[in-house]
C-alpha cells in the first residue's frame, strides 16, 4: 500500500466511523434509557443507568408488547413467504424465457420501483377497505407483498442469470421437467439469495409503519411499530417502558441480521449485474 492509498483508506475509515456513531447513537440511547428510571431519563439523559433495572421491560410486556410482537411475526413471516415464492418463480421465468414480452415485463417491474407508497395510499386504502380486509393481518400482508415483490424479483433475476446453465441442462438430460429443475436443482442452490431477500424484506416489513398505521386501527391486530406508537400517546409518562418496548421490538431483527449478514452483503454486492 503506498502513501496515497493509505491516506484514502484512513479517510474512508474516518467517514465510516463517524457515520456508524451517527447511526448507532439513537439505538444506544434507546438501550440505556430502557434500563433507567423515569427521573433518570430526564436528569441524566446521556449517562449510563445507575442500576440494571428490568422493571421497564416487565411493564412494557404487560401493556401488550407480546401480542404486538405476535402480530408482527405473523405479518412478517406471511408476507416474506409470499414475496419469496412469487418472486422466485417469476424471476426464474423472466431469466429463462426468450420471449420478447418478458423483457418488457421485466422493465415494467423495474419501473414499478419508482412508485412511492405515499402516492398510492388513498387508492390502496380504498382497495383494502373494499375487500373488507381492514384490521385483518391478511389486509396488510398483501400490500407488503406487492411492494416487496418487484425488488425481490430483480434480486432473484440477477442470481438466476448467473446460475450455471449446465446444471439445468444436465438435469434436463437426467429427466427433469422444467418445474422439477426449478425445485430440485435451482431452489436447493439458491440459499444465499433467498436468505438475503428474506432478511431484507423481513426488516422492511417488521419496521413498516405507514400502511400498518392506516389499516390496523384496532389494538388487537396492531404490529409492533404501530402498537408502540399507540403507547406513546397512552403512556406518555412512562418513557422507560416505551424504550424497553422498542428494544424488544428491535432485538429479533438484530439477531437475525447478525446471524445472516454474510449472505446479505454478498448478494447485494452481486446486484446490478
Amino acid at each position, binding site marked *: 500500500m503506498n502513501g496515497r492509498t493509505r491516506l484514502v483508506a484512513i479517510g474512508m475509515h474516518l467517514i465510516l466511523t463517524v457515520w456508524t456513531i451517527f447511526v448507532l447513537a439513537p439505538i444506544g440511547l434507546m438501550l440505556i434509557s430502557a434500563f433507567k428510571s423515569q427521573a433518570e431519563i430526564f436528569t441524566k439523559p446521556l449517562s449510563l443507568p445507575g442500576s440494571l433495572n428490568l422493571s421497564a421491560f416487565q411493564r412494557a410486556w404487560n401493556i401488550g408488547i407480546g401480542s404486538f410482537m405476535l402480530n408482527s411475526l405473523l405479518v412478517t413471516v406471511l408476507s416474506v413467504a409470499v414475496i419469496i415464492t412469487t418472486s422466485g418463480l417469476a424471476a426464474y421465468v423472466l431469466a429463462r424465457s426468450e420471449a420478447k414480452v418478458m423483457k418488457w415485463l421485466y422493465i415494467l417491474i423495474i419501473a414499478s420501483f419508482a412508485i412511492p407508497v405515499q402516492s398510492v395510499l388513498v387508492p390502496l386504502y380504498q382497495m383494502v377497505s373494499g375487500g373488507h380486509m381492514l384490521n385483518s393481518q391478511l389486509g396488510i400482508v398483501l400490500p407488503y407483498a406487492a411492494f416487496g415483490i418487484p425488488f425481490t424479483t430483480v434480486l432473484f433475476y440477477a442470481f438466476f442469470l448467473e446460475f450455471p446453465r*449446465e446444471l439445468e*441442462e*444436465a438435469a434436463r*438430460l*437426467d429427466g*427433469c421437467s422444467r418445474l*422439477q429443475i426449478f425445485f430440485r*436443482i435451482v431452489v436447493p442452490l439458491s440459499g444465499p439469495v433467498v436468505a438475503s431477500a428474506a432478511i431484507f424484506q423481513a426488516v422492511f416489513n417488521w419496521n413498516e409503519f405507514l400502511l400498518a398505521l392506516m389499516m390496523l386501527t384496532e389494538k388487537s391486530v396492531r404490529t409492533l411499530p404501530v402498537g408502540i406508537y399507540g403507547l406513546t400517546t397512552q403512556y406518555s409518562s412512562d418513557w422507560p417502558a416505551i424504550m424497553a418496548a422498542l428494544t424488544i421490538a428491535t432485538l429479533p431483527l438484530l439477531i437475525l441480521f447478525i446471524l445472516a449478514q454474510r449472505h446479505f452483503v454478498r448478494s447485494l454486492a452481486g446486484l446490478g449485474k
Partner: protein
Amino acid sequence: MPSLEIDNVKKSYDNFQALKGVSFRAEPGEFVVMVGPSGCGKSTLLRSIAGLETISSGAIRIDGRDIAHDDPSQRGVAMVFQNYALYPHMTVAQNMGFALKMAGRPKAEIDAAVQRAAQILRITEHLEKKPKALSGGQKQRVAIGRAITRSPDVFLFDEPLSNLDAALRSQMRIELGRLHAELKATMVYVTHDQTEAMTMASRIVVLNAGQIEQTGTPLELYNRPTNRFVAGFLGTPRMNFFAGRVVRQDGSAISVQLPGVDLNLDLTLEGEGPGVGGEIVLGARPEALDGAGGIEIKGTTAVVENLGREALVYVDTGALRTFDSESQEGYVAVHRPYQVEARFGAHTSIRLDASRLYAFGPDGRSIAFPRSL
C-alpha cells in the same frame, strides 16, 4: 450397441448458421472424435444430438429411429460436460443415481448401477462426498460415472478434458480408451485438441465453420488430408506451407518453382492442377524435411524446441518462407529425430524432397500426396 446417424443437420441462430448440413454415421461401438477449431459448431452439434438445442432441419437417428424431436431424457443419450456440471448439493452417489431416481427406478437398482459405475471408474471411496471435496480429475470421473449409470445408447463428451492439467489429461485419455473398450459403447467425443483426436479416435470427423471437412481414421486423415485445412489442422507442429508456381506440366507430371529454391520440384498430380503459370501450395510435414533425399536448402537456426530425445527446429532459410504457420516470421519447422544443441544463428539446413510433399490447388483441395502414401 446402437448406431448414431446424423443426416444433413442444419442449425441457425437468428441469422447465423452454426451447422450448414452435417452428415456422419457412428457405427455401433465406435469412438468418433469430432475435432475442429473453437467456434466451428462442435458443441452445437453435440447439444443438438442431446436435445438441448432444436435443429432447424435434418434428422438424428439412433438405430434408425429419428430422435430429433424427442425429449432429451427419452433419447437414450448421456452427456459429459466440459465443466463437469455436477449437482453441488448432492453427494457423488446421488449425482450418479439422479437420472435413475427421476425415472422412478427402485432404490436397489439405483444403488447397484451406481456401485457398478463407481467400480469401473475407481471412485467407490468418494461416493458419499460432495463434489466440492473432489479434485478436477475426480469430478470428471463422477461426471462420466453419471453417464454410465444411465446405460445410454450413445455417450456424448464435450471437451471433457480441457479443464484438466496436461499430465492428468494424458492419463484420462488412456482411461477413456480403456472405458470405451470395456463398455463397448457408441461414443461421440468433441474436442478442439487434435492430439486427443489423433490418440483416441477410431474415426475422426473434422468440422470447420459448421461443415464437415473430412471423415476417416486418424492415419487416413493424417496421411491423405482432403484439403489444406485438414492438412494444417492435424499434426503438431503444423504442416509447412509454401506458395509456389507451376512452371511445366506434362499430363499429371508437373514441375513447381518455389522462391529461394534453385531447382524445380517434380510432382505427380492426382487431382486437377492450376495449369502452367498457376499458383500452387506445397505442403511439407516437419518430419519430411529432415533426411537425406531431395534438395538441400541452407539456413540458420531461429528457434529450437528441445523435447529431450528429439527436437523441433525452426529454420530461417531467407527467401523460402512458410505461410499460415505457427511461426509468424515464416520460419520452416523441422522435426529432428535426435537431440539438438540449442544455438541461435547456427548454420543448418533442410531438405526438400518432392516425393514427400503435398500439393494443394488454388481452392485448397489436395492435388498431390507423398509418393509412399
